[in-house]
């Protein structure tokens, strides 16, 4: 054979790689990147979860019995870092990457190459963090806040140490997130189909927009702080070193200026998923659509003014405590609007309880609880008692796991038929839901009680009086570990041999359901024209799209 078919030659003539192989390539297709993000993030979720289970195993008894204190500190530090920066962030960005162009009627995202670059930094961050366990210094051990001066004590004396790698990973993560945010924001602002005005965008697009705007506005503070801390650690500068007239409290301000809004960067897309799934399974339009859209932007604005509530015990003066108590409580208003809108949406609906709906209802109910404990934490005198205790850990996990991770699961099940072209198994999905709901509540509810009784977070050994509730929490954690098994089995087997999915299995509104499952390479045969508000459930003109005749 001396002749090569033209199609096999390199360069622009090269055909699309065979279907599964494109997921391992530097693809610029937003749908491939979306799946790459989701799968990579889920792998890190499993690793972060494994670390959490080791931590929970250590906490089964008051004394040390499995790992030493340094390793324990490293495990909870990397657990937190992975779950935030390598699970929730990339899972949300992956879902947004897949869905936003489809939802707004675009063929691709604004900056496909930038988008791909942003994704490929994620595995780099993960590998760096995991490899740091094998350094002589060990991995970073100062918690995911990495407060100086303890974070930069560097007892090993090595230039390449765990904290160094952690800070490097944070800087890379910041760059990746900014690139992803630039792409998503530009796509939403610039690439909407004809007739897709802002107030015709699905709420998921609104929440992605507000979350990614928060990234653009707040993330530079964290990235800057990480670089300054890196200089303090490695170059001997003294931005935050108290013994050399630096100020460690300034680091806390920079860190929380970003890291409180970061909670909303994670939570807003979850609210978006609830706002898509609930109407579809209640067969009713989202109640008060416009106010839900506006409240996303309000959350975006208010959440940049509340960060000091993490620092009520950090030598914060009285006036600052009071001001930030007020702003923090104010966030309850736009979030309340959302919760009430969801409840009103299912009220008098025709409810169907497929797996996405179960996860959405579970997530909303858990968020109701998390919101209430959140307002409690904003009350300064109460916060001072529970600050840095397990009450905060419990509250936080009701947000990041019971609400946000539930929402990500809801989203994965809901859009699985669109993404893969196949149906998942309902039975396995429901088992997954119940294991998750029970495991999560067993795991995180007792933490509130532990915190009220004074159990401090980040301790490897504890007073025997706290044993009982810790055992319950640990059992819940192991159950959560188990709960991922039916999910993995379901996803893998359904993707390989599930029943073929129709274009619109849920009979849902939204442009993503008007194209084939999975969508063709440029999403739409013809760019749709949008003529009415979203969520037209129960309305005569359900079909909001007139195909553009050319």
């Amino acid at each position, binding site marked *: 054979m001396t002749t090569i078919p033209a199609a096999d030659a390199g360069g622009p003539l090269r055909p699309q790689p065979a279907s599964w192989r494109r997921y391992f390539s530097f693809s610029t297709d937003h749908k491939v990147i979306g799946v790459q993000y989701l799968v990579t993030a889920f792998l890190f979720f499993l690793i972060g979860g494994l670390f959490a289970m080791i931590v929970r195993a250590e906490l089964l008894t008051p004394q040390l019995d499995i790992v030493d204190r340094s390793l324990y500190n490293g495990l909870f530090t990397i657990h937190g870092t992975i779950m935030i920066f390598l699970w929730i962030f990339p899972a949300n960005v992956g879902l947004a990457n897949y869905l936003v162009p489809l939802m707004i009627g675009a063929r691709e995202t604004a900056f496909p190459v930038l988008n791909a670059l942003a994704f490929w930094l994620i595995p780099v961050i993960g590998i760096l963090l995991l490899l740091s366990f094998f350094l*002589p210094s060990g991995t970073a051990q100062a918690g995911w806040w990495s407060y100086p001066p303890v974070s930069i004590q560097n007892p090993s004396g090595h230039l390449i140490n765990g904290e160094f790698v952690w800070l490097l990973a944070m800087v890379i993560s910041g760059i990746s997130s900014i690139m992803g945010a630039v792409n998503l924001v530009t796509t939403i602002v610039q690439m909407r189909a004809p007739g897709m005005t802002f107030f015709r965008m699905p709420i998921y697009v609104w929440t992605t927009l507000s979350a990614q705007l928060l990234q653009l506005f707040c993330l530079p503070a964290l990235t800057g702080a990480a670089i300054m801390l890196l200089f303090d650690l490695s170059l001997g500068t003294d931005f935050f070193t108290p013994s050399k007239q630096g100020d460690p409290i300034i680091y806390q301000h920079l860190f929380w200026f970003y890291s409180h809004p970061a909670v909303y960067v994670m939570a807003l897309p979850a609210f978006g998923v609830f706002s898509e799934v609930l109407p579809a399974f209640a067969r009713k339009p989202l109640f008060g659509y416009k106010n839900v859209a506006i409240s996303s932007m309000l959350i975006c604005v208010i959440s940049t003014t509340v960060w000091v509530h993490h620092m009520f015990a950090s030598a914060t003066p009285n006036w600052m405590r009071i001001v930030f108590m007020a702003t923090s409580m104010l966030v309850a208003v736009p979030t309340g609007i959302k919760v009430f809108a969801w409840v009103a949406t*299912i009220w008098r609906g025709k409810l169907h309880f497929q797996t996405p709906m179960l996860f959405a209802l579970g997530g909303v109910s858990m968020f109701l609880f998390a919101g209430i404990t959140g307002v409690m934490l904003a009350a300064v005198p109460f916060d001072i008692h529970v600050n840095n205790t397990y009450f905060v850990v419990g509250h936080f996990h009701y947000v990041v796991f019971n609400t946000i991770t539930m929402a990500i699961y809801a989203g994965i099940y809901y859009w699985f038929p669109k993404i893969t072209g196949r149906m998942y198994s309902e039975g396995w999905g429901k088992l997954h839901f119940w294991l998750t709901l029970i495991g999560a509540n067993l795991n995180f509810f007792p933490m509130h009680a532990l915190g009220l009784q004074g159990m401090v977070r*980040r301790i490897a*050994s504890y007073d025997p009086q706290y044993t009982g509730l810790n055992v319950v929490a640990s059992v819940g954690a192991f159950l959560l570990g188990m709960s991922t098994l039916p999910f993995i089995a379901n996803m893998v087997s359904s993707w390989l041999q599930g029943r073929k999915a129709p274009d619109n299995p849920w009979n849902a509104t939204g442009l993503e359901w008007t194209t084939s499952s999975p969508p063709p390479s440029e999403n739409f045969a013809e760019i749709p024209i949008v003529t009415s508000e979203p969520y037209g459930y129960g309305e005569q003109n359900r079909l909001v799209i007139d195909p553009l005749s050319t």
Partner: protein
Amino acid sequence: MQIFNALLLTIWVGITIFTSHILGQQAYDWLPTAAAAEAELVGHLFSFLVTLGTIVFLGVGGMIAYSILFYRTAASDRSDAPPIRGNSTLEIVWTVIPILLVIWIASYSYDIYQRMDTLGSLPLAHLHLLESPAYAEMGSQDSQPSDTQPSEQIEVLAKQWAWSFHYPSQNITSTELHLPVNQSVHLVLQSEDVLHGFFVPNFRIKQDIIPNQAIAFQFTPNRVGQYPLYDSQFSGTYFALMQATVYVDTPKQYAQWLAQAATQPPVPAVNSANSEHAQPPSLPVRSHWHTVSPAPPPLVNQ
């Protein structure tokens, strides 16, 4: 159906009022025994928050539960529900109610906070470590009403990983924090190395300690007994071992202890971080990572 719903609503309102009241009362017991005036104030606030929180949770949660129970639809029914897109009055109501609730919670919290007054009227003093004369100055700025006898300022020194407490007037240092009951206690919190946190759950008070700052802190213990003191701000490898015991003494016991401690010559304290560092426990998984060596144990009279 109308009657059934009215009955259900009445029952649910009853359950909500009853449960929120009961939980609000029980909330005090979810906290450790109160042993300071501040603890009682925090207890009232927590009880208030639990009551209100339960009402909101059962109110909104009840609507979700009702929907799940009564709006369940057969899988075969593919029809849509009535297309209700919103209701301006309702939406205004559920914006205004949270605003009012939040104002109520914030003003009640503010009131409690003013009464706790743990930072006093002191601006956070930026003082140099162990510059004793400055404390006297800080004391004079203190605007405590003069009828309560302020006890002396006790210096709390935190370091990796030991607490020590210095009583300047008797020149006593101890690993135990002895406090006289029913007197306003004035502490000056300092750290030698990293951030630490002064936390006594039974007092419901907490304050981070920041190197190169002396932070004035005050509260009033009001129940005789022994209470654990924890480090509440992560301070490194042996963080969990950084504990001490607070003794709230009767005035007589307190005076006796001071007098007795003054007779003891200073010796290096027993310190669990130091002993564990010297003799690490045998564990299945050991990292062999470098750790910061614990600071030398403080020299203490008792």
